[in-house]
């Protein structure tokens, strides 16, 4: 059953077409800009809601045209895409509200929101790409759209960070181009299809297939911040808070993780990947990244750096769930895609509020901030506890499924890994909470640096409530977890 | 080996080669140019020997005469600008930038390689193989003229010839553009250099002109050759200052430059239609059309060549007559 095949295209175009308009608006047209931003974001969310409902009913969307003979630009809305598209549409709206508040009087707002729009378009494109070629196009577009956001402040430091970011991600993109080409030459198609497209190639040339796996996963692993390709992520912290929030929760890092899913599930197929003997090393790499990221996070005093290393660690849960090659672990991985997004975006917005409102940028300066910004810090606490894995919060749900999946796959070490990681999470988050709530402010009488308006305060609280909801109502119909099961059934062809 | 011309051929060929080497190796640039003029005239002689009188004429008049004049004018200009006009035999007027030895060796190796390849290819090629002559002979009756080279230039391959006039037009526009705003540099007077030049080329010009006149009686002469002869007259007028270009003449000059090209192209387009292609002259008018084109092109060529020699476009700021003597 197909109808309105253009719906995915329309969803893509809403933000893509908004971008040139936003670029062209003069700096002073702030109200108009805010109106367009919020209007388009809301429209997109509604459209995505409609799309998910249709896809849930079994409608298949598929739109494509030929770019080169045989090679198609292809958009499709499969359940896996819907999972990611919904996340990005929802969080885009929230982050837009936050950004409007954050940049209220800053320079270059036209540029910022233009690229912001492009960035979400690219994310949606990454999600709905129907083949690796299209995925590559949006993957690169994402790099290009985020670069100006990362260096938005225009200082020497941010430019240096931007250069490192650009080198890592464009080199990754180039390797992805190589891999895509190799896939095209080897398999004659770059389509995503559950079960993979490489069976014939594997039978014929096992080594080539293995190399292709390394190349493709390595390429998307740059954005997914897999150790040792993660170095750009902590450095990119010079970006403004809403950008960091978006980068970590929705856009770049998630695009990498999502790419790993597509490559493993739909280019190779989980069984083929397992038969190639590639999943176990990937799982091991994910495990190393999880522990390494957490250990590094403990040693950071800068709040945003600590959060960044935490991301390195947390995103690899997704990779781990994919690599374990167990349907139960896969549920955990996919759920974590959503859960980590909600948790991390909350934390980054809080970090932004602390810096903007109180001038607090370091963990050691956090004494007593809970009393000065109770709402914001409550949101932070909820997200942090969820991240540690306190039942029944969001993080617990994903970790639970991952552990189950580990047992299912016969990898008992995963349990130990998850316990260790949770312990480390606690080690770097609890001191922050302890300082915020149980210590006296060092300069309690000091007036706040700047008043935090509702546009800055409301978004983190909203996302924190969502963190509570997705954990608490994990088994409700239409919860992310339920959708995840739907997706996994498809990918494992059950 | 019993060809009576063999010795002549060998002598002429060695003279041409020796002059080519000498042109590039003598230290004095003036001598170099003079040697080049002799080289050009001897080459033209060789081409006469190869039954190519039209080519020989063009080479003598344009390739050697006009080119030589242009070179001498440039040399004169450069010596004047650097204030070294008085020193005779100034070997080089541009500062030598040292070229790294590896580059020179690489260049020499490249030249050697190319020459070797050329020589091998030349001696491997079929000598005097069939060319266009049969085709030309068949087509001559429809060409409207009786001289084969003219038929090729102005009928069979008239598109090439039109584009050649376009090249000439491009050159004069480019030269005016390059020298725009240049202050009134000395127009070379008939100084010592020029007497030498005149001694060498004037007789050649006279011979060529006579030949062309004579030739014109039996068939349309080559537009380029007669254009060059007329240009030589212009050159002498300019040099002797009997004619001084003035800003007011600019518009006329522009029209004269484009006259040949414009009419040539317009006729090419206008004859099209009624089953005829562009450039396809109706048989009954072919002769007169070709004659018209040739005449106008000759005027344009003459004016253009003279303008190329004069260089900069006449501008208002340089009116004052300034006779420059060495």
């Amino acid at each position: 059953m197909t109808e309105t095949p253009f719906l995915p295209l329309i969803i893509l175009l809403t933000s893509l077409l908004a971008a040139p308009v936003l670029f062209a608006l003069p700096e002073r047209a702030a109200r108009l800009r805010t109106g367009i931003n919020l209007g388009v974001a809301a429209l997109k969310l509604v459209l995505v809601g409609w799309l998910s409902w249709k896809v849930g009913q079994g409608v298949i969307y598929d739109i494509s045209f030929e770019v080169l003979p045989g090679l198609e630009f292809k958009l499709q809305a499969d359940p896996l895409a819907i999972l990611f598209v919904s996340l990005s549409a929802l969080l885009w709206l929230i982050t837009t509200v936050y950004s409007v508040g954050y940049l209220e009087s800053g320079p270059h707002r036209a540029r910022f929101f233009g690229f912001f729009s492009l960035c979400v378009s690219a994310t949606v494109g990454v999600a709905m790409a129907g083949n690796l070629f299209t995925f590559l196009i949006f993957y690169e577009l994402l790099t290009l759209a985020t670069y100006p956001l990362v260096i938005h402040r225009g200082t020497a430091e941010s430019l240096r960070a931007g250069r490192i970011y650009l080198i890592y991600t464009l080199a990754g993109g180039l390797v992805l181009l190589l891999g895509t080409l190799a896939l095209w030459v080897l398999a004659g198609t770059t389509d995503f299809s559950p079960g993979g497209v490489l069976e014939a190639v594997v039978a014929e040339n096992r080594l080539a297939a293995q190399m292709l796996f390394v190349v493709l996963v390595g390429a998307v692993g740059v954005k997914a911040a897999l150790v040792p390709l993660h170095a750009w992520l902590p450095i990119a912290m010079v970006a403004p808070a809403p950008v960091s929030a978006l980068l970590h929760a929705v856009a770049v890092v998630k695009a990498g993780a999502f790419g790993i899913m597509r490559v493993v599930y739909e280019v190779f197929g989980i069984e083929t990947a397992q038969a190639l003997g590639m999943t176990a090393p990937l799982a091991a790499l994910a495990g190393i990244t999880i522990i390494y990221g957490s250990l590094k996070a403990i040693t950071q005093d800068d709040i945003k750096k600590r959060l960044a290393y935490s991301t390195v660690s947390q995103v690899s849960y997704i990779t781990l769930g994919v690599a374990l090659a167990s349907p139960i672990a896969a549920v955990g991985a996919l759920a974590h895609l959503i859960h980590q997004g909600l948790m991390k975006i909350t934390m980054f917005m809080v970090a932004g509020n602390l810096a903007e409102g109180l001038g607090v940028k370091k963990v050691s300066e956090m004494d007593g901030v809970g009393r000065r910004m109770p709402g914001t810090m409550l949101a932070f606490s909820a997200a942090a506890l969820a991240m540690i894995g306190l039942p029944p919060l969001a993080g617990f749900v994903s970790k639970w499924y991952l552990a189950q999946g580990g047992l299912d796959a016969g990898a008992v070490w995963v349990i130990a890994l998850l316990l260790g990681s949770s312990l480390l999470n606690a080690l770097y988050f609890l001191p922050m909470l302890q300082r915020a709530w149980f210590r006296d402010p060092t300069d309690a009488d000091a007036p706040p640096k700047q008043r935090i308006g509702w546009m800055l305060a409301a978004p983190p609280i909203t996302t924190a409530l969502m963190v509570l909801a997705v954990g608490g109502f994990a088994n409700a119909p239409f919860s992310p977890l339920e959708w995840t099961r739907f997706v996994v059934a498809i990918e494992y062809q059950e | 080996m019993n060809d009576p011309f063999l010795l002549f051929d060998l002598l002429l060929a060695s003279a041409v080669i020796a002059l080519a080497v000498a042109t590039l190796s003598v230290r004095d640039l003036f001598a170099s140019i003079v040697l080049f003029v002799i080289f050009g005239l001897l080459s033209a002689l060789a081409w006469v020997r190869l039954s190519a009188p039209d080519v020989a004429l063009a080479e003598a008049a344009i390739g050697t005469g006009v080119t030589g004049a242009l070179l001498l004018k440039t040399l004169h200009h450069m010596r004047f600008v650097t204030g070294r006009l008085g020193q005779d035999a100034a070997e080089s007027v541009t500062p030598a930038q040292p070229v790294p030895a590896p580059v020179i060796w690489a260049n020499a190796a490249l030249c050697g390689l190319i020459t070797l390849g050329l020589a091998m290819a030349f001696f491997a090629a079929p000598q005097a193989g069939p060319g266009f002559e049969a085709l030309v002979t068949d087509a001559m009756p429809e060409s409207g003229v009786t001289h084969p080279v003219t038929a090729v230039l102005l009928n069979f391959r008239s598109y090439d010839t039109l584009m050649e006039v376009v090249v000439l037009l491009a050159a004069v526009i480019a030269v005016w553009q390059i020298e725009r705003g240049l202050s009134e540099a000395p127009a070379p007077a008939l100084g010592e250099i020029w007497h030498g030049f005149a001694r060498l080329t004037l007789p050649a010009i006279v011979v060529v002109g006579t030949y062309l006149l004579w030739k014109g009686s039996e068939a349309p002469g080559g537009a380029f050759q007669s254009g060059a002869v007329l240009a030589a007259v212009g050159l002498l007028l300019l040099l002797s200052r009997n004619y001084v270009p003035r800003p007011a003449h600019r518009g006329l000059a522009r029209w004269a430059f484009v006259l040949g090209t414009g009419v040539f192209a317009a006729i090419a387009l206008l004859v099209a239609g009624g089953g005829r292609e562009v450039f396809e002259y109706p048989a009954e008018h072919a002769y007169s059309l070709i004659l018209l084109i040739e005449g106008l092109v000759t005027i344009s060529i003459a004016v253009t060549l003279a303008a190329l020699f004069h260089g900069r476009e006449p501008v208002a700021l340089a009116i004052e007559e300034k006779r420059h003597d060495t």
Partner: protein
Amino acid sequence: MTIDPITLAVFVPLFGAIAAFVFPRAAVWLGLGAVLATCATVLGLAREVLAAGEVVTPLGGWAPPLGISLRADGLSVAMLGMSAIVGLLVSFGALDALRDLRQRQYFWPLWLLLLTGMNGVYLSTDIFNLYVMIEVIALAAVGLTVLSGTKDAVRAGLEYMYASILGALLFLMGVGFVYLQLGRLDFAGLIAAEPSGALSAALALMVIGLLLKTALFPLHFWLPAAHANATAPASALLSGLVVKAALYIFLRLTTYMPLPDEILVTLIGALGAGAVLWGGVQALRAERLKLLVAWSTVTQIGLIFLAFARAGQVGLTESWKAAALLILAHGVAKSAMFLAAGRIKDEVGHDRIADLDKSDIRPTLAQFTFALAAISLIGLPPSLGFIGKWSLMEGAMAAGYWHWVAVTMIGTLMSVAYFSRVFAGFLRFDRMRGELAEHKGWALADIAPLTLAVAAISLGLMAAPILSFIELGYPFGELP
């Protein structure tokens, strides 16, 4: 009087040039009108080619080999179309960019003569005619190079002139050898010819001449200075269009007379690789924006030759298409980039890369245009440059030429590196002395390059129709 668009494609710009030269006061409008009319003519020709596959006109009614005929197929019309459209937009840009009256008066006739020459090259089927055409191009191009009249420009123009004449003479010598061997000069004669040593020597001579004209490493020495010192619209034309004419002839000749030896194919590839790497290094070291852009032309030419590097083999027509796509991509993107660089130089007052961020004036739109053009030149999706690079690498990979894949990737990384030097200058804001001047809004001279840059990006998604158009009339061998 009915005249085919194929002849008009050469005659319209010619008459335009004559008119613009004779009436200097009206040169701008006459010139612009002629370029517009040329666009219309090319459009008409494109329709004919779409309908018939190829259009042939024997000029003067004399069929080759005695006469010269004009022939248009998909490839030639694609080149004509690129010249006309890029030319039109550069012309619009020139309206604003050339403020000096006398510059403007000479720009139009020279540019229209250039267009005449290029159109003539793309329609020609006779190698001697090609020689005359490349000379028309050379003289007009040198005139444009020195339009600014500065010492650097004149010096660069002279070097360019030497290289041009030498290239043309090598080509002419090759023509002479073809005549010696075959007794005819038309393309059909070349196609029918039996391969022989002498013919290969002739081809080699012509190829060396063309490589000199198209500035393939190490014969590129004249290009950076010439393109960097010309005025912006002239640079855009020179870099975007002029070098393509010699490339096109190379493409045709090697199609009709395939390179005889695998070693030569590899040599061409090696020179291309040299261009990519050496040009990249020089672009990294360039101190001025326009010089950087000029060096990027050297690398892009090298890239196109990398695509040629496997053309000699049977059935591998793909690489020609990659080359054709890269030629189009570079033509559009590079002209946009040079115009944008010119705008930046005009607004900021200099084009030293190191000092770009010290200026309180930021020509935002020109910078944005520059970045868009850079995306296509780097080869990032979905630009035309990306599709070209994709085809190039696909071909190299399928043929097992991994070394060329590696060179392409290194070249891409280098281009990221040198272009990001420029972006850093655009986007750094902490070294300014005063307040940032509010961006000035739109200017006419911004629109032309922006349009070109947007086209360079978005044409990538239209590569399939472009390719099927280029294949009309079988330009790549297999003549019916």
